[in-house]
């Protein structure tokens, strides 16, 4: 019924909104501010700084300074919009909603969701906003939804014939069947880290609670193993389910399926890790660090105990907030927040780096969007 109600056409809807905004803005400007002295001071300072910047920009030397700043943050000649992807589909979440980007660069908005992730085979999306969990078809059609308080970090796992969705509701970790039935609590007091299903099973789920990464049987609740994981921020199983990547604030560790530590990829005093991802084959890892104001994108094509195979792919001022591999493993996508760009860098070889500019605007967002996954071959 909600979709039907939302499809009802209202005459002059757009103009009504803009008239209302003009009125609301005027009323807001005329209201009595609560703390007049501070509020007056702040705009004066901002205006003065802006005037100085504008003044610099309009003199020839000033223009050169601005150009150098622009060059320093972002790739020159970045494409103004996304024309194509090197295969697959991207899932993106912004404060303008959740979006799918197709291989031809076309975008579809799935709805006003804050977070989203792919189903195991990329045929559906599980999305969350406020107090709602929703399973969506790729055209945004809602297949089912649940109301739970403070829904976050949904993840969909399983086989072709049977799937489960894990998600956080407040501090609870909950599991529901892929058709929306049988919602139940699996664990309490978990940390706000997205759970990760061991691929091709709907049984084993990795999550973080009380400073430990825990792998448990989601049907019985029985713990398979756990290991210390202070400050863990992200979990990812390799596609074959044999390795679990645990990204900490300054660490990258890889455990095998029985919980033994296989690789500790960074030494003790490493720069903060801002993003990491297994390659689709599970044999390699790409990750980003930030050191002294610069973002560095690294790739380890083949995991080795000494991490000596790590190669720097790109660096620039700012932060790479997300990293994703193309489904064919030939490209890395780095989300470059300060440049408001997406960077496509070859994972091997010497092909040219490509970039797409104005990412925030392209997703109707006010803040830099989140990469939620690059699917499927």
């Amino acid at each position: 019924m909600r979709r039907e109600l939302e499809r009802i056409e209202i005459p002059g809807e757009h103009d009504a909104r803009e008239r209302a905004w003009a009125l609301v803005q005027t009323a807001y400007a005329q209201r009595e501010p609560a703390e007049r002295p501070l509020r007056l001071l702040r705009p004066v300072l901002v205006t003065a700084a802006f005037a100085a910047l504008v003044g610099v920009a309009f003199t020839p030397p000033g223009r050169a300074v601005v150009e150098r700043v622009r060059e320093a943050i972002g790739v020159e000649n970045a494409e103004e919009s996304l024309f194509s992807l090197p295969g697959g589909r991207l899932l993106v979440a912004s404060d303008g909603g959740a979006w799918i980007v197709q291989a031809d660069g076309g975008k579809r908005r799935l709805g006003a969701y804050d977070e989203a992730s792919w189903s195991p085979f990329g045929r559906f999306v599980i999305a969350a906003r406020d107090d709602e969990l929703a399973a969506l078809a790729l055209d945004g059609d809602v297949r089912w939804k649940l109301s739970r308080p403070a829904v976050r970090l949904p993840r969909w796992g399983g086989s072709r014939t049977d799937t489960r969705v894990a998600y956080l509701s407040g501090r609870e970790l909950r599991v529901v069947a892929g058709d929306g039935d049988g919602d139940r609590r699996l664990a309490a007091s978990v940390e706000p880290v997205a759970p990760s299903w061991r691929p091709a099973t709907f049984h084993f789920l990795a999550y973080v609670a009380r400073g430990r990464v825990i792998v448990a049987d989601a049907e019985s609740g029985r713990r398979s193993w756990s290991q210390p994981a202070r400050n863990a921020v992200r979990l990812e199983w390799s596609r074959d389910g044999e390795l679990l990547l645990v990204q900490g604030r300054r660490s990258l560790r890889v455990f095998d399926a029985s919980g033994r530590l296989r690789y500790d990829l960074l030494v003790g005093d490493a720069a903060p890790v801002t993003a990491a991802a297994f390659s689709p084959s599970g044999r390699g890892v790409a990750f980003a660090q930030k050191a002294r104001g610069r973002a560095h994108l690294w790739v380890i094509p083949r995991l080795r105990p000494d991490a000596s195979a790590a190669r720097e792919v790109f660096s620039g001022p700012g932060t790479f907030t997300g990293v994703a591999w193309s489904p064919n493993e030939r490209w890395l996508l780095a989300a470059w927040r300060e440049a408001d760009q997406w960077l496509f860098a070859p994972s091997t070889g010497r092909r040219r780096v490509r970039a797409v500019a104005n990412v925030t605007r392209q997703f109707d967002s006010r803040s830099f969007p989140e990469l939620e996954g690059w699917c499927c071959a």
Partner: protein
Amino acid sequence: MAGSGRSERAWVRGAQAGSVSDLEALFRAHWPRAFRAAYLVTHDAAAAEDIAQEAFLAAIRSLHRFDRRRPFAPWLHRIVVNRAIDWARARTLRGEVELHDVPGADAPEPGDAARLAAAIAALPPEQRAVIVLRHLLEYTPGEIAELLELPRGTVNSRLRRGLDALRERP
């Protein structure tokens, strides 16, 4: 589109502190549903615009004392829906008939959405309001009872009668 709880609290905080951009974010997140809710209850675009505008102006006037730990939407929707009910009741008493209520000889066959809109408009204002709150704005019957200050049983019976009438529409 409403923002996440976190972003909405940030917008309210920013608007309370004088940020026009945060106020705009709040407005653009909530205007579409507020306006649509008002339209579905009043079935009058001009009235819906006035009512939704007035709700936002009321929000501006009360912004400094709004508790941002509470969600913004129910506060806004209470104003919108109550004023829309009042308008619709007053219009019913005046016995107005819009020109578009009289089908012309060459009028095109209305689509499903238009038929639904007309069917809702044929309901009493009180039933329209609970249907809009339940099925557009997705409040529970308990929340609707609180918003409209009605007994829950009254909300349930209005919902039932309204939905029955909609199901019987041609």
